[in-house]
């Protein structure tokens, strides 16, 4: 009995130790939210796990305390934009906002910029929905990281990301407004750092991390550290590609039957005259000397005397 108990404990230990992936742990705890559909999940900002979207456009990060270092804080206006990465995505932007950096002319057209995730496979992801669901209808905006009203940047591709209308209006604009009006009123400077947060190789950011700190009054006027969600209530987004659809109306995954029948690869057993699905376990078990891979229409195989495997049902 004692030995049996020890075996169970050992087995449990092995299972727990093998759960090194947080995602796997989450799946067991019932938190396994697919990161590429619905709201963005698995969001981590500076090592802090961000809660899933819950009807609030933004949440505090680090208790709302910005993390500018003494070396970073300055009263000299400037702006910085990261180079795009290998996937064409924007990186961190930061600026010291002063009245001298603010625009003196109207905003120009920015439609020439195609941020990552705006299109996928040559097709625009900027779908139009009922205006009751999305203000203006179109789900996406080219969202400025450093807002135009702060630094006057127009069609700068290092400063524009694919963001929902909700992110732009409810999540980012309020902070830009607050900084802009504070700087105009006080003539002080505000440190502003804006970082798009991507999950892995996703083309569309899960959201935007924003930090602000007013310099001359040591944060008495402007002081925040927040994450704004890139969501559109009522609509689900595939953050890997930017594709989107009405909640609950996810497109069917591409099925074998919808593939071109002439471009499907099968595994043949030349000995048993059976053919199998490529990648199936029964196909993988065939001895090398009897195995052959063929990309063709299944009827061709049947005409040659092959029959489909009853297990993997190709």
């Amino acid at each position, binding site marked *: 009995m004692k030995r049996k108990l020890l075996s169970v404990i050992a087995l449990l230990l092995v299972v727990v130790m093998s759960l090194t992936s947080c995602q796997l742990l989450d799946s067991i705890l019932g938190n396994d939210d697919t990161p590429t559909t619905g709201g963005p999940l698995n969001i981590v900002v500076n090592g802090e796990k961000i809660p899933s979207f819950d009807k609030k456009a*933004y949440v*505090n990060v680090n208790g*709302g305390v910005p993390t500018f270092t003494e070396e970073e804080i300055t009263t000299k206006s400037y702006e910085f934009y990261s180079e795009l990465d290998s996937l064409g995505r924007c990186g961190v932007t930061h600026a010291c906002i002063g009245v001298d950096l603010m625009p003196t002319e109207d905003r120009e057209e920015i439609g020439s910029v195609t941020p990552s995730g705006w299109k996928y496979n040559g097709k625009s992801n900027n779908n139009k929905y009922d205006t009751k669901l999305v203000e203006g209808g179109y789900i996406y905006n080219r969202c400025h990281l450093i807002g135009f009203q702060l630094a006057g940047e127009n069609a700068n591709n290092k400063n524009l990301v694919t963001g929902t209308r909700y992110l732009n*209006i409810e999540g980012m*604009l*309020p*902070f830009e*407004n*607050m900084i802009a*009006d*504070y700087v*105009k*009123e*006080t003539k002080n400077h505000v440190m502003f750092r804006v970082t798009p947060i991507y999950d892995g190789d996703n083309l569309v950011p899960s959201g935007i991390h924003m930090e602000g700190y007013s310099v001359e009054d040591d944060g*008495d*006027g*402007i*002081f*925040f550290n*927040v994450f704004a969600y890139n969501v559109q209530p009522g609509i689900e987004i595939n953050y890997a590609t930017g594709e989107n659809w009405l909640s609950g109306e996810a497109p069917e995954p591409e099925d074998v039957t919808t593939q071109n029948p002439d471009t499907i690869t099968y595994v043949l057993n030349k000995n048993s005259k059976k053919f199998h699905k490529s990648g199936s376990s029964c196909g993988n078990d065939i001895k090398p000397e009897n195995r052959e891979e063929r990309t063709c229409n299944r009827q061709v195989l049947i005409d040659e005397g092959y029959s489909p495997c009853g297990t993997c049902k190709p």
Partner: protein
Amino acid sequence: MKVIVCLDERRGMMFNNRRQSRDSVLIEDVVKDLCGEKLFISPYSEKLFENADVKLKVKDNPLKAAKRDSVCFIENCSLADFKDEIDEVVIYLWNRHYPCDFYFDLNMEGYTLKSVTEFEGSSHEKITKEVYIK
């Protein structure tokens, strides 16, 4: 009691323990309307009036300290519990959307809009001033 507040488009007042916005022309308007009366404020609001010619009564909760005929400028206090005492509300609207985690919580049922005026601030294109009375 008369209370004066500043609100954004979502009836917000504060974010992260800070006011959403400020405007020196608005402060001048508040002071002008006082006609020499004392203004009850919290310690947080004191800086806004440091250059103004105004008699201030600085209290942790000005609504508790104020009397029936006093005037209070409120930024970071809940108003809901003082509805019985508040017979006039002056709302300055920024006409802007700012971040917010502290909202105006006075139920305006029973108050009547007496006047609406608009003016340009020092850093705000249009500030709307609404006066409500019981």
